[in-house]
């Protein structure tokens, strides 16, 4: 197999990205054909509309960036929904100039707790982060008294999330910054090498002298931090924090990471893929809502697309090989 020249075949990790990108084009064409037929216009390919969709996609993109780091070390973070909500609620409660730092520290703190539990107690991440999610939910319910909090986002949060500079939504710049940070970590830092190494074989990474527990804590901390960023931005976008604001981000973020070609068992995947996966999910959602698809059909199509994409390129190896 290794005799095939590298130039003639796509690297294994690039194939999913290319196919997902082609699928995005297919969604755009199908959606445009539909709107042209029905309304005689093509809003899907207008820059204004695309920018607006990307602005909404930025929140998912930021969450998915952190989720990818955790999935790469073959863990998962199910505490994202209430970490995000807690960060948003604490930020709006504190208000003033401290709002954003407080929101981000909440996310970071929850991430560190997750990391400590997974790395040192060795509780499976799926169950530990689930417990942390329940605790955060309990804390927030106790904090708000079960009612929608009456606090509002600060003007800086609104500026970052909902306004534009140079005609481009500010949220996109935040997404860009988060993306750049993740790419630097994964491509240019030793930490990135360690992350891939742990995802492939933690025991081997440990024997090679990698502080695997430390790296695990860092990954979870960063994942919590990105959830915090998304929470602060989302509160700014909707001008307030509310119960359940993070629920719509957990499964789509995992799906985006996986559609982008990252192996759910860790150790393989490129950040560009996650980016493409996020855009795919956001566009799919917006096309379905233009088509006025009822929730039932949306869920079925959503599930079908994930299975289809993975059947095309996400298949695992046989046990026999």
């Amino acid at each position, binding site marked *: 197999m290794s005799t095939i020249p590298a130039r003639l075949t796509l690297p294994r990790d690039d194939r999913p990205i290319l196919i997902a990108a082609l699928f995005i084009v297919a969604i755009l064409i199908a959606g445009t054909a539909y709107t042209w037929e029905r309304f005689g216009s093509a809003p899907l390919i207008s820059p204004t509309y695309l920018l607006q969709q990307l602005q909404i996609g930025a929140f998912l993109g930021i969450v998915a960036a952190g989720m990818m780091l955790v999935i790469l070390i073959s863990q*998962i973070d*199910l505490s994202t929904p209430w970490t995000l909500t807690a960060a948003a609620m604490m930020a709006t409660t504190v208000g003033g100039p401290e709002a954003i730092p407080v929101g981000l520290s909440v996310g970071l703190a929850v991430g560190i707790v997750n990391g400590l*539990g997974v790395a*040192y*107690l*060795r*509780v*499976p991440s*799926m*169950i*530990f982060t*689930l*417990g*942390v*999610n*329940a*605790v*955060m*939910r*309990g*804390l927030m*319910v*106790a904090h708000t*008294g*079960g009612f929608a909090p009456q606090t509002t986002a600060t003007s800086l949060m609104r500026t970052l999330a909902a306004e534009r500079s140079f005609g481009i939504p500010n949220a996109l710049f935040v997404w860009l910054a988060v993306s750049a940070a993740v790419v630097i970590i994964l491509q240019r830092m030793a930490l990135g090498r360690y992350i891939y190494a742990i995802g492939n074989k*933690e*025991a081997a990474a*440990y*024997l090679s002298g990698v502080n*695997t527990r430390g790296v695990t804590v860092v990954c979870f901390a960063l994942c919590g931090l990105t959830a915090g960023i998304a929470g602060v931005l989302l509160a700014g976008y909707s001008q307030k924090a509310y119960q*359940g604001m993070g*629920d719509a981000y957990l*499964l789509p973020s*995992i*799906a985006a990471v*996986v559609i982008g070609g990252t192996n*759910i*068992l860790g150790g393989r995947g490129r950040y560009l893929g996650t980016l493409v996966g996020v855009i795919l999910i956001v566009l799919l959602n917006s096309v379905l809502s233009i088509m006025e698809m*009822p*929730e*039932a*059909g*949306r*869920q*079925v*199509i*959503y*599930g*079908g697309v*994930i*299975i289809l994409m*993975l*059947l095309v390129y*996400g*298949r*695992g*190896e*046989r*046990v*026999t090989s």
Partner: protein
Amino acid sequence: MPSDLVIRLRQNFPFVTALVLFCAIFALYQVEHPRGFSSAVLVQNGDEVFALAMVAMAQTVPVLAAGLDLSVGALMTMVGCCASYLLSGAPEGTPLAVELAGLHLNLGTLPGGIIGIVLGMIICLAVGTLAGLFNGVIVVYGRIQPIIATLATGAIYIGIALFLRPQPGGKIDDDLNWALTNALSDFASTVHIFDDGAAPWFAPFAWIPTSFVLLALIALLVWVPFRRSITGRTVYAIGSAEGAAYMSGLNINRAKIAAFTLGGFFAACGGLFLAIQTSSGNADLPQAGTYTLNSIAAVVIGGTSLLGGTGGAIGSIFGALILRVISFFFRIYDIAPLLQPLFEGIILLAAVSIGALRVLRVKNTLELFR
């Protein structure tokens, strides 16, 4: 030389812990309850725990094969929505017709009365089992990781549930509801057996909640034979070492598909009971998610390793019982409703962290990485 019993206890340590913990907190609950140790309280407890116990059993089987089924809650909801159409028990029968994208499919009429209800229950269970089979086929022949494959199929099942019941509604036959969600005496008097439940020999059992009996029957008649079959043992073998299981000549594909199919059947039982208990079908997305996540928690508390290979569905029943009894305590101790989610979370975290104390005994760090 430790005796056979000691070895068995040691091997099943997590399960025994769960059992003892359950007995302790359940006894405490009954003592503290103002009307404790009465049939009425037991009936209520049984009804509240049944669906979660079934979903936890459903989750156990794929977990034993080192998989995970994130679709159990959605599958349960879908079956519940089917049941809300099929079990109305209308004497004139239930017409079966599906309106899909302008297409009108007429599937005949479900007969009324008891035959119709039994047929309807069989159809519901078949739907769930088929959905489980679909999960298994996607995982085995699609070679997609179970966690992400079932995430996707779960979305599909919830979509079907929403299609069936955009709004909560439907109707379940009143007698069926009464027979299954009360004590055995009520079951007997509804279906007219044992002299309407008045037979003298029947009296000592009359107080037992029907839900507990159903739970025990499903565990003994479905789970235990499965576990003892070659396929069941193969499921355990896959969880321990899939490569070794394959090299030993075991049919791992069949065992994996069987694991997901059986999971679908258990989840269908849970959905059916939930629909009968609430007398309606409700495509409740958050509820489905909660059931899925609680099922994982129940599996872990019940002593099954998420890495696969050890544990069992009986343990998961006790895991589900423990989770539910903890929330029963909130009622009798009058804890502010606002603090209840917090306590639930802390107890869940504490339970899984205590199980993690074994890391302190590990002498070789490499043993941690499995």
